């Protein structure tokens, strides 16, 4: 599974896409957030961290899979 990174999350990970090792059992957005916090403690310091599934904001219960486009949405600052 690949995760698109933007803004400060790309700086934290040092890359624009994150591959989740096949062995990790991440079923939902919530599981992904827990895993990210373990891998990248700096992401826990952000004001907020949302996840988009197929370019829609998703809550923690949303299932994630290989056929979805998944992206991390750190605090937005457009305008």
């Amino acid at each position, binding site marked *: 599974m690949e995760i698109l990174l*933007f*803004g400060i999350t790309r700086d934290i990970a040092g890359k624009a896409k994150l591959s989740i090792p096949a062995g990790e059992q991440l079923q939902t957005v919530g599981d992904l957030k827990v895993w990210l916090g373990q891998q990248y403690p700096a992401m826990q310091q952000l004001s907020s961290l949302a996840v*988009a599934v197929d370019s*829609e904001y998703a809550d923690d219960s949303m299932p994630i899979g290989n056929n979805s486009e998944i*992206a991390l949405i750190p*605090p*937005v600052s*457009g305008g």
Partner: protein
Amino acid sequence: MLIRIVEHIDLGEAPAYLGSEETGAINLFVGTVRNHSKGKKVLHLDFEAYEPMALKEMEKLGLQAKQKWPLYEVAIIHAVGHKLPGQPVVVIGVSSAHRDASFEACRWLIDELKRTVPIWKKEFYEDNSVWVNAHP
């Protein structure tokens, strides 16, 4: 609706799109790069968008505004890339029969855009740079 993410904003585009014989009022908000922020000199900003999602969110906001107020048209244009002080980074425009709706809807749209649309701004000062809003 005119919903765009562009490299360079043309300030004439939204007014030309919004004008019509039915409308009496156009309100336009233009956000520009300030050369200072929190007491520090700003050299430039870099804007980055998750473009397919940002366009979808901008479109949702336009449709919501049209439900909340009697609007003729809505334009939402955001710039990405390297922006210098004085350059426009966002344009919101709405047209309506009367001015109340145009002011209210335009204000609501810029507030919501800043709250929900996946676009990120990095501020470059003389000695460092920061992703705006990233930390509490």
